């Protein structure tokens, strides 16, 4: 999934990501408070902050991390990522694939019931997966599943069902693809592809998103608007009853990370993000378990290759050379995030440490501008950089650096995310600040979705048949080595054409109360924390 960084650089709760495969960051107990064994048992209730009120808890419709974080506990997919980001069976106990990778047959786990007691059937699965490509649902994951046979016809209204998704019998579902895709099963593990009860969703429509019923370890209990969402343990969970009895999501509108941290310090929350301001001091002031993990993400300035003067790659290159990104990243993140030299974060298949990127080189920038016909920026229109929130000191520094090579620039802000998103999709921004969090730990999820000419997420309008070919081959290549090489070439191609100016890769960072045990933050980040395994040490 992805989302624009409306509050990028902000201290938002870690954004739903596919974290780096196999990268573990230290989870260290800074210090543990003295424990009183005679104290009464702690109520097994887990309270965690939610940075905004989610619009819906319907997994197919969720486009933000807030709803995703909650829905992840309520619903199960056919498959899921385990903590090492390996695909593991969930509602599907077993599956097979045809040799060509086009036909996938899933056998459902027996005896799994929704929270309302109804058994899960193949029909629910067919419904749930078909919804993703249903234009009426407008799932942000629709494009991920567009290669399912009949998906496009269904989207186009030429068919009433997705022909590629069928129930063979009550517990067997077959999915037929038009085009084989190496990480197809991984797609089914993303947050959108949860199995919902067909009858309820059909009856309730949008209302399902306010009182969701799933199969997950926790069942929806109540939702106090702008206050809290409460989940309670599902003792009938197929994987065993969770140890926590309840999860309370406290809503702190507009990512009030300072307030969250304060509440955490007072012991009213079990975890909290770490505010950027006074970050080291705050960390040292609390006896908390500090979890830090590189995230499968990239934050960049997208350059609209169809908007003049950015159509000229030399101009795009000049802009990239002009900005002292290293200094800006350091100044704005205090070293918390990793400087991005390319698109793929370290740890991704195909990450290229020898990537030929761009340093800070104003002379080269001027030279390139001159070559493009804008010596010293003369003749260049003023460039507008669009973002959702004003970031100090990052944005002024960017403007200053561009001005230094004679490029006039200014930041403009569209604070409404849906509007920003729409304008982005319509290609109305020449330069935009954007963050991408991978849905699956795969380079395809970065490069194909952001730069393939057919990708709906290609907001830069970049079209390069060679790149498309590389990406297509990447999807079919079973050999990781060759695949990595393909994606390296693709990334290099994107960088050579300076389609984006990458800034940094996010680092997931959060503090937990020391009595919180079994914190299994997978590489997927915050929403994928396995609360069903978590427990609280019974001390005051």
């Amino acid at each position: 999934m992805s989302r624009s960084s409306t509050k990028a650089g902000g201290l938002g709760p870690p954004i739903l990501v596919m974290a780096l495969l196999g990268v573990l960051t230290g989870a260290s107990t800074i210090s543990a408070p003295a424990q009183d064994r005679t104290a009464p048992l702690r109520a097994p209730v887990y309270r965690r902050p939610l940075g905004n009120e989610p619009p819906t808890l319907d997994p197919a419709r969720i486009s933000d991390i807030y709803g995703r974080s909650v829905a992840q506990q309520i619903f199960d997919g056919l498959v899921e990522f385990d903590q090492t980001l390996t695909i593991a069976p969930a509602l599907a106990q077993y599956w097979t694939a045809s040799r060509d990778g086009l036909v996938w047959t899933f056998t459902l786990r027996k005896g799994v019931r929704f929270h309302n007691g109804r058994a899960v059937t193949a029909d629910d699965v067919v419904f749930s997966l078909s919804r993703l490509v249903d234009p009426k649902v407008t799932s942000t994951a629709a494009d991920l599943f567009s290669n399912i046979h009949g998906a496009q016809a269904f989207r186009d209204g030429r068919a009433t069902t997705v022909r590629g998704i069928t129930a063979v019998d009550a517990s067997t579902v077959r999915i037929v693809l038009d085009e084989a895709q190496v990480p197809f099963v991984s797609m089914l593990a993303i947050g959108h592809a949860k199995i919902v009860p067909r009858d309820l969703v059909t009856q309730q429509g949008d209302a399902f998103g306010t009182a969701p019923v799933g199969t997950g370890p926790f069942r929806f209990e109540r939702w106090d608007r702008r206050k809290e969402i409460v989940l309670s343990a599902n003792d009938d969970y197929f994987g065993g009853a969770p140890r926590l009895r309840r999860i309370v999501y406290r809503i702190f509108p507009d990512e009030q990370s300072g307030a969250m941290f304060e509440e955490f310090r007072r012991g009213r929350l079990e975890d909290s993000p770490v505010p950027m301001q006074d970050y080291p001091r705050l960390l040292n002031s609390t006896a908390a378990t500090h979890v830090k993990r590189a995230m499968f993400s990239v934050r960049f300035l997208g350059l609209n290759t169809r908007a003049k003067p950015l159509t000229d790659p030399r101009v795009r290159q000049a802009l990239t050379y002009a900005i002292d990104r290293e200094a800006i990243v350091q100044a704005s993140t205090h070293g918390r995030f990793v400087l991005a030299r390319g698109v793929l974060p370290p740890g991704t298949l195909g990450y290229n440490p020898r990537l030929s990127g761009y340093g800070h080189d104003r002379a080269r920038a001027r030279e390139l501008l001159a070559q493009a016909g804008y010596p010293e920026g003369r003749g260049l229109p003023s460039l507008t950089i669009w973002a959702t929130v004003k970031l100090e000191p990052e944005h002024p520094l960017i403007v200053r650096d561009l001005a230094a090579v004679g490029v006039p620039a200014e930041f403009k802000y569209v604070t409404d995310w849906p509007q920003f998103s729409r304008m982005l999709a319509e290609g109305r921004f020449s330069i935009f600040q954007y963050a991408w969090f991978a849905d699956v730990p795969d380079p395809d999820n970065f490069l194909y979705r952001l730069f393939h000419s057919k990708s709906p997420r290609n907001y830069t309008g970049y079209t390069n048949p060679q790149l498309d070919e590389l990406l297509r081959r990447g999807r079919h290549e079973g050999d990781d080595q060759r695949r990595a090489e393909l994606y390296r070439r693709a990334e290099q191609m994107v960088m050579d054409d300076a389609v984006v100016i990458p800034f940094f890769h996010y680092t997931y960072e959060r503090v937990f109360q020391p009595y919180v045990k079994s914190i299994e933050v997978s590489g997927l980040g915050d929403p994928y924390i396995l609360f069903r395994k978590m427990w609280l040490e019974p001390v005051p």
Partner: protein
Amino acid sequence: MSPLSSPTRSLQTKLLWGTVLVICLVMAAVLVVVDHRQRAAVIDEAYRRGEILARDLAAVSHAPLLLYNFTALEQNVARFASEEDVRYAIILDGEGRVAAHSARPDRVGVVLPGDVDRRAAASLDPVVQETRVDTGEVLDEFAVPVLVGQQKWGTVRVGLSRQRAEALIRRTRLELGGLTVLTLLLGGSGAALVARRISRPVQQLAEGAAAISRGELDLRFEPTTDDEIGRLAVAFNHMTSQLRQQRAALESTNAELRRRLEEVADLKTYTDNILASLTNGIVTVDLDGRVVTLNPAAEMLTGFFAGEVMGRYCTEVFEKTPELAEILMETIASRAATPGLAATLHRRNGRTVPVEISAAPLKGGEGKDLGVIAAIRDLTVVRELEGRLRRSDRLAALGSLAAGLAHEIKNPLTSLLTFSRHLTRRFDDEQFRAKFQSVVPRELERINGIVERLLELARPTPLSFSAVRLPALLERVVELYAEEMDTRAIEVTRDYARDLPVVWVDAEAVYQAFVNLVRNALDAMPGGGRLTLRVVWSDEDDVVRAGRQPRARRVRVEIQDSGPGISTDNADRVFNPFFTTKVGGTGLGLALTHKIVEDHGGTIDFRNGRAGGTVFRIVLSPFPDPPAEPGRHGDDLR
């Protein structure tokens, strides 16, 4: 060791072969143990390797299996199959169909039909199976299921060649064999060197020893090393010098010994000669009484040959002469010499020989008892001489008796002759007649008395024994001569023991004997003197002991005068008839006395007193056992 090897080389050969044998044994043991261990380790290692490989493949194939990334699976099997000893790697999917096959890609998608395949596909646990591939090679197949929960997602199979393990085992064996050969070579040559080093000096020593055994004691070795061999050489030199010294000592001792031996031989010859030349028979017996020696004289005497009696008991040999055996045994028992004892030796041929036997214990050096020696003296000649002497004595005595008789009778006969001549002529002469009447009967009476006493002396007298008190008998004698002694101033001293017994004798005979002795004493003291009469117990061993019987106590009567004594010239003749020193004596008194005493089984002798005078001593037994032939007692040697 080869029996053909020469003796001088045997030590070297022994050492060499011993070392080689030990090395062989040790290396064989090492070979067996190491090979066994190594084989087990290699096989175990191969199994572990196979299992690890299969598990590795399962681990890396886990995600591709779930993603159905056949390419990745094929790459995996290809990668694993590229391992040297992996013959094939297969990944089966959950249905048991081949998802990836390194050796037979054409089998992809099919369910393999073999038993091994079925078992591998069906098992929920790791399985190790033996299988055979088309080439005929036997493989170990390691099958590991890929499980997610209880669901089997696939099976990983790895066929592992045994060649690597076998090659490893072979190589180890080869190396061990090489090591053994090397050890044998090194050890053998080392042993050979050492053996040479040891055996050469030893051989020299052996040659030296041989030389020494030939008597070449001047041999010397120069010790070349400081080790045991060197020390051996030094010791050898020391030994030869010692041998030299000892040989010299031995030679001198030997010479001395030979000299002594010659002496001993001489001595033996000497002794043998002495023994042989002895006229006395010599018999020696050992402490058991067995005859040891019989010298030629003894052989002659006894009639036995030394050879036939040697080692036999003397009591058995001399059973006819019990005295000899007895004296020998007694001496063995008493360990005291036995003086000469007369005996009669009964010879083998039945003749008897008078002998005198003396025996003495035979002592070796240091006083050790060896036995007894007995000397047998042949008394035949002595007896013959004695008999001859006795006859001549008797003739002499007869002569002197005849002379005495003639002398005694001659005077009266002369008187009678004279008277008878004058008778015719002077018959009428009154005076003559008167004289005739007085002289002739007196002279005739005198002759008659002489004849009468002579007859008495010669005639055996029957004795009539009665209990007599000897002092009383003596007092009768004193009474008889009381007047004469009074006149002649002879003092009588009596010394009678108090506890004297009565003596069983012929009182008149003994009285007559006492009278004769007192008469004799009075005649020896014409000018007066002292007559001492003594009757005491006799303690003296004045009688020849007869055998070993306890002596009966006897009574001794002494009659002592203080006269001039008897000259030694006359001592032998005192008791002879007609011997007298007195004028007018007939010389028959003492002879008669002697006869009386002897008739009583007693003894009589005399001796000169210390203060002059003569003591006649009569020893009598209170209960005499009168000789059977009283008339012959004078001939008895005893």
